[in-house]
């Protein structure tokens, strides 16, 4: 009985999932530009123009992001640099 009872939510869930548009079978309708090292450098330059960008903790975050970008972890590096920019802007 419990086994049968568990089937129903699974069935409902499966139906809801099946009714959602598939992401694998079709190509995406919208694409973002690839994030690259050039964009990392652009963010580093933007951080450098900010007065608070050379102070901690924004500077540390920026350096960390720049290092991550250089070592190939572009997405993580960009996220770190963006956080540094937010901190530098007092947000």
């Amino acid at each position: 009985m419990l086994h049968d009872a568990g089937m129903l939510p699974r069935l409902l869930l499966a139906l809801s999932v099946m009714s959602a548009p598939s992401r694998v079978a079709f190509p995406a309708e919208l694409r973002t530009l690839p994030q690259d090292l050039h964009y990392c450098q652009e963010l580093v330059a933007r951080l450098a123009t900010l007065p608070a960008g050379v102070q901690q903790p924004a500077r540390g975050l920026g350096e960390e992001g720049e290092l991550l970008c250089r070592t190939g972890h572009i997405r993580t590096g960009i996220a770190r640099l963006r956080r540094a920019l937010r901190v530098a802007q007092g947000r």
Partner: protein
Amino acid sequence: MSPPPHPRPDLAPHPRPDMPHAVPLAAATRRRGQHPGPLWQLLSSAGFRFALLFAALFLLAGLAFTGVLWWGTAGALDRQIDAAIRADAMALAERWRDAGDQAVADAIGERLALDAENQTLYLLSAPSGQRLAGNLEALPQGFAPDVQWYGMSLERDGIPGEARLFVLPLPDGSRLAVGRDVEEKLRLRALLTEGLAWSAGVALLFAFAGAALLRRALERRLAPVTATAALIAGGDLSPRVPLSGREDEFEALGHSMNTMLDRIAHLMEGVRGVSDAIAHDLRTPIARARNRLEEALANADDPAALHSALERGIADLDNVTRVFQAVLRIAEVEAGARRAAFAPVDLVPLLEDAAELYGATAEENGQTLRTEWPAALPLTGDRDLLLQALANLLDNAVKFTPDGGSILLKAELLEDAIVVRVSDQGPGLSLEDRERVGERFFRADSSRNTPGSGLGLSLVRAVVQLHGGTLWFDEGHGESLDKPGLAVCFRLPLA
């Protein structure tokens, strides 16, 4: 004779030897009807159906609750995101109007640089379609100039997701697209869906369990009624539904059924009593008639004796016929068939006719008939039946009043009824006999030696009841202790 109210169902035909296959088929069908499967039993149960209805209402309420919950969570999130996108797009468009493409490109760069969550999507494209700023490669596939809102699949650095996009045309033909990656929101929605699906499953489980419990409870409460009905159907009228003492609908049903069974038992007893009485009371005159005819046969050589014996035999048989007619008339009156013949009638001429008829008989016996009534006694009823009732009462009074005694016939008009009283100086009736005196063929011990069939008062009672009235007995105006007299009174409503 009229057909029975519930015709019997046609009985299954007897199996014929030349139809060997018909027998097992019919038997199988009958077996299926008698022993349906457990699923069919469950579905055909009224308790289960009630419970199912309850479960459906329960689920409907659950769905309404889910709808509100969905609108308040996932719906609110959608609306919030759309509002943020629109506000952002409007701010950028305002900036474009103030400072042109480059200012918007700078603003987009600034916004993207601060998007630590990496959720924003921007695109500023020239009228030629060339990308000027933003992180989107191009406008969405299937872009239509007259459509502003898009919900579509997104590929961000090779990772699939979902996006919500607002495309705003700028006055120079440029297009500004602002959007959000809504993957997180979809994940939340999936979680919510899963939670609701589990809740619905559990609710359904509870609904079915509740239905089964309710069905069992109903069956348990109805079991005494069913068992009693089965015993009664088996021919035993004595069982009654055991009452639990709870003041609920099942108790009321059991109580009503017991009352009905008491009434049926009483009626059956009455029918049995009438049958016994008919058999007993008619046996004597029929046997007497037979004896007289036999006697006549023995004296066949004396024409005068033969003639006399035949006359007495015919008189005895006429008496039997009269009894039958009286029984049939009482049955007719009790069935209410005569009510259609009701008409406005004045009781005074009927009283006068009855008094004239029985006054002569009373006078022959040395009795006195005293009468007392107003000038008019109007009511609605059956003239013949009322006259018959008065005649029966006066007949009894004359029979039981000793010679030289008096009889009183009195009627009075009240505000809403007429009350008639026939009083005599006869032996009267004990209190026990008064309760039984309306029964057919009942005769008190003191009246055994008086001619009569025991049907006179039965007819009077039936006539009074047909007119919506009541009959009762009172003390008569007898002057000695052994003959206190009896007064038979009845009250007939005017309307």
